[in-house]
């Protein structure tokens, strides 16, 4: 097939967007489902093309899909090329983005059913997917930045999708402002690189960095600038505050944009520009340090959240921190090994480890959010205190949610285990200090995600919370029944597919295939089956598994024992008399734990609130200062004609004097 076909990967969703906004919405508004079909068809076709691109890249010797460039504009010698850079990194991202997006769109048909903004929703989802695909395929930083802002805009629009809710509108604004702070850094980084090398071309910049043409402070500044952009988009400390609030958007949006793809764009960006980072130890330390700190910081906040989506949001931040840590640690390998590991090797190591976790995370985190959506669809709330016992009513959702949680917790042999293990190994080998942080995070992760599992699915149903968190969509056709029910099949099928992927996606690297595809040739330890079990020849996997298991067990003990007490009398840590106080007791105990957790984690919560104030304060402060100036300066316009004439006269004299003294 001609390589130009690659263009269609990102233009197809654009066509879907245009078709919806220009044709379907104005003229076929009575057939809202057509817009969903348009988006799904376009993304499905893009998915097929992505698979084709992946296969082609796999087969080509240099792992590159050579798409001829289009000369877009020549402005006095300054040529702007439009080109695609489809290498192994891009090919993986393409498959992940189109695949996850396709599943989420299918799911959304059920979730958004009956919403008045149905066509608008699918239009923006198509636009988002187009921008995201453009972002990963762009061959120049300039165009990448364009799409970068594009996904930011779509994210803003979709967070504020239910704009009549004040909290949603505020969250959208906050997301927009906070990520904008990071984007300034990104832009500064791009410009630094441009003025140093006079090109925006990514491949050229990577080569230049590797050849040492960019070096020293310039390199570090450019790398840190780019990382600032990545940190904004990937919600790294201290720019993470927008992501939990972003959960005000529809849940499929959170799933696709704020868990699986867009937030991973920051990690992708760092991976894409990794040669720029790898030659600056400072930059690598910043990446690894911020990543590790974010991982533990966000996980600790996840411990106390009551809103299931917020738990997942903190989890996402934490996992993204892991990916950053992986990148940084991989890059630092060259420095830590004292030169025995060449920097090129370290680059591919970091990228392979980080991207592998991104790849796995996309599936299981997306699934977790879809599970949240399914639960919300059934109960009308996101508050875990009002859930419970859903296992009985929604067995399929429960099953998939547990699979995804196990994967997230890093339980063998699910996908999360493999990539998390690689991150732990890499950090153990090269920056041990962050290894311990990561290990504590493993414990927290296992705890909070199973806390969510037990609170939501086990025990007795606590009745939902009418009115409070009810998603704005109303479902005509079937009334909100008193008891929760399983979601429609159109929602369950994508979840099933993702559940399978959450189990098996990690296995593709068993024989080092994923890593070597990204240029990192790990020493092969025989066939994949051998590796599947042979991993336990090292002690490290035992440590991480044991830590995760301890976390799960603690969650089980704290949140599930009521259920255990009710059925299995005599459990050691559950006094029998408390069973008699039936469910009211449960709530009180819950309160007690909440208070205790709150006290225990008061520090973290305080930290969260403080930086929410500070970071948002800076963003709003700059805006307010400008507007304040504006309000002051507009007073110069007195409306007095002669005042203006005086300004002209004074201006002339001033110009004259200025020229007089200047020359």
């Amino acid at each position, binding site marked *: 097939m001609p390589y130009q076909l690659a263009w269609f990967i990102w233009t197809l969703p654009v066509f879907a967007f245009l078709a919806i*906004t220009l044709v379907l*919405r*104005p003229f076929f508004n009575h057939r809202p489902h057509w817009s969903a079909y348009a988006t799904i068809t376009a993304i499905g076709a893009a998915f097929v093309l992505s698979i084709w691109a992946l296969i082609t890249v796999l087969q080509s010797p240099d792992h590159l899909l050579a798409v001829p460039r289009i000369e*877009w*504009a*020549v*402005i*006095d010698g*300054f040529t*702007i090329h439009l080109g695609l850079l489809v290498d192994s990194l891009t090919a993986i991202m393409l498959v992940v983005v189109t695949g996850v997006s396709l599943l989420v769109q299918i799911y959304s048909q059920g979730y958004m059913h009956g919403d008045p903004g149905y066509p608008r929703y699918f239009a923006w989802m198509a636009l988002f997917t187009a921008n995201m695909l453009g972002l990963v395929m762009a061959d120049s930083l300039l165009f990448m930045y*364009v799409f970068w*802002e*594009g996904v930011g805009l779509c994210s803003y*629009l979709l967070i*504020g999708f239910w*704009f*009549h809710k004040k909290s949603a*509108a505020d969250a*959208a604004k906050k997301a927009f402002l906070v990520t904008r702070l990071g984007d*300034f850094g990104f832009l500064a980084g791009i410009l630094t690189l441009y*003025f140093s090398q006079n090109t925006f071309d990514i491949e050229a910049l990577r080569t230049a960095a590797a050849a040492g043409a960019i070096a020293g402070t310039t390199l570090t500044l450019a790398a840190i600038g780019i990382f600032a952009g990545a940190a904004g988009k990937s919600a790294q400390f201290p720019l993470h505050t927008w992501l939990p609030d972003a959960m005000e958007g529809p849940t499929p949006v959170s799933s696709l944009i704020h868990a699986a793809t867009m937030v991973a764009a920051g990690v992708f960006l760092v991976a894409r520009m990794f040669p720029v980072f790898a030659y600056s130890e400072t930059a690598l330390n910043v990446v690894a340090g911020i990543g590790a700190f974010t991982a533990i910081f966000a996980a600790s906040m996840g411990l106390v959240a009551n809103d299931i989506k917020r738990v997942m949001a903190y989890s996402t931040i934490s996992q993204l921190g892991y990916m950053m840590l992986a990148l940084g640690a991989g890059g630092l390998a060259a420095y830590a090994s004292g030169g025995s590991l060449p920097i090129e090797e370290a680059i591919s190591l970091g990228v392979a480890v980080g991207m592998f976790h991104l790849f796995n995370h996309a599936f299981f985190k997306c699934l977790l959010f879809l599970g949240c959506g399914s639960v919300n669809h059934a109960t009308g709330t996101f508050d875990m205190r009002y859930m419970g016992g859903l296992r009985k009513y929604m067995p399929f959702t429960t099953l998939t949610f547990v699979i995804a949680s196990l994967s997230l917790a890093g339980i063998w042999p699910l996908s999360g285990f493999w990539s998390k293990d690689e991150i732990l190994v890499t950090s153990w080998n090269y920056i041990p200090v962050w290894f311990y942080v990561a290990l504590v995070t493993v414990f927290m992760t296992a705890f909070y995600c199973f806390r969510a599992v037990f609170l939501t699915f086990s025990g007795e149903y606590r009745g939902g919370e009418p009115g409070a968190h009810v998603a704005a969509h109303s479902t005509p056709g079937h009334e909100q029944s008193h008891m929760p029910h399983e979601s429609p099949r159109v929602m369950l099928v994508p979840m099933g597919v993702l559940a399978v992927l959450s189990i098996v996606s990690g296995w593709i690297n068993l024989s080092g295939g994923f890593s070597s595809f990204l240029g990192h040739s790990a020493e092969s330890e025989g066939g994949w089956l051998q590796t599947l079990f042979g991993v336990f020849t090292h002690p490290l996997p035992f440590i991480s598994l044991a830590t995760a298991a301890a976390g799960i067990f603690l969650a089980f003990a704290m949140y599930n024992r009521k259920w255990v007490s009710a059925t299995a009398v005599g459990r050691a840590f559950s006094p029998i008399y408390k069973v008699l106080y039936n469910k009211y007791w449960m709530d009180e105990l819950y309160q007690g734990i909440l208070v205790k957790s709150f006290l225990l984690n008061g520090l973290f919560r305080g930290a969260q609130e403080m930086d929410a104030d500070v970071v948002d304060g800076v963003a709003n402060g700059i*805006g307010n200062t*400008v*507007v304040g*100036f*504006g*309000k002051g*300066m*507009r007073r*110069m*316009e007195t*409306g007095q*004609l002669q*005042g*203006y*004439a005086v*300004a*002209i006269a*004074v*201006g*002339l004299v*001033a*110009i*004259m004097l*200025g*020229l*007089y003294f*200047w*020359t």
Partner: protein
Amino acid sequence: MNLWLLAPELSLFFTAVVVLLLGLASSRRGIVIGVSLLGVLVSFVFAAFLWSGTPQATFNGMLSVDQFAVFFKFIVLAALVLVILASADYDYKVEQVRAEYFTLILISAVGLMLLSSARELITIYVSLEMSSISLYVLAGFLRDRRSSEAGLKYLLLGSVASATLLYGMSFVYGLTGKTELGQIASAIQSLSLSGLLDNPALLLGLVLVAGGFGFKISSFPFQMWVPDVYEGAPTPITGYLSVASKAAGFAAVMRIFYDAFGAPSWLGQNWGLLFAGLSIATMTVGNIVATAQANIKRMMAYSSIAQAGYIMVGLAAVSMGQSVAPAARSALAFFLASYTLTNMGAFVAIIAFSNKTNSDLIVDYSGMGRRAPLLALGLTLCLVSLLGLPPTAGLIAKVYIFNAAVQQGLLWLVIVAVLNTVVSAYYYLRVVKLMWLGNPVSEEPVPSSAALRTALFLACAGILLLGIVPDLLVRLSETAGHSLL
């Protein structure tokens, strides 16, 4: 003396006379608008013929017909088409005097077209006044409190500026004995000055001329009339003022300051520095005050001041290097072309909204995305282009002009301009956000006439076309930039 070289202006003037007489004979709106558009088309065809000719001076060097001038004629004609279409639905407010209204617009366009090719002081002054006086009347055309106030302010301040300009011109004439720009240039060079202070009278003359044109292009500190006049004038005229009159002003500045007064390179660098300084002040004042506006016409006025600041970046770039840079001229031409489409498009949408709501307050745009999706989409596109985001012409224009400036070593200026662009996002996107996310004041849809829709469609199509395939216009503007006689 070849009259064909003047054919675009002559045909347009003839159209104006015909429209005036038609207005005496009949009062059908369609005829007047149709004849006007036909005249514009004829003029456009003549201009297109001139484009392929070789650059030459005519009327004893009073006018130069080069691609640069023709490019600006195209810009004026494009603005003219849009303003005529935009007025078609607006003129319920100017019922009785329809023909005069269009006549005045056409005459002012003739003046602006002449101004863009004038290269002689008398011609410059007369064509400037020809357009200005028509615009004074148009600004006060509605004869209500606001419009008449706008007319008075524009007239009195404009006259002060043109008197200043004239006084400056008299000094230039006195020192050089010539009124033709080329001869002035050689006369100044033969004075063999080593600095501006060697001849303070020249300094005085040049600064007064700069002030007169600074008024026209709304540069700081001569920009204060802009918000009041833009707010009060009939909205199509506001749009027209903000694009056509500004474009021709820039063309004239380009000719005067870099043809006549740019000759020893230190003099050119002085202008470059002056325009760079004024550019910073202009865009900063425009952007910052725009953030605090509640009336959209007033906001667009400050926005147009800020845009003038960006254009002046190109002006500064023209002569900052050792030699005059044609690239900066091309960039300026491209920017003005894109700005013309964009700003006129925005004003067309504003007219369509205010026809229904009878209000220009920004808060009344709340929820317009639901009441009039296509209009809101058009306005969004225009605002996005003004801000300079893809995939619009505004982005290309900014890249073009900033690139030219960077190549002339004006990186600091470009950084200030980019920071300003960031500030401008606040007020442009505020409107966009309000339109799409705000709650509608009422659920009543906003209808718009076919003429307004056509105008908006033309503008938006142009914006997108230039944004996606800019090569078309880049080639033209490069030819224009290199052709200056």
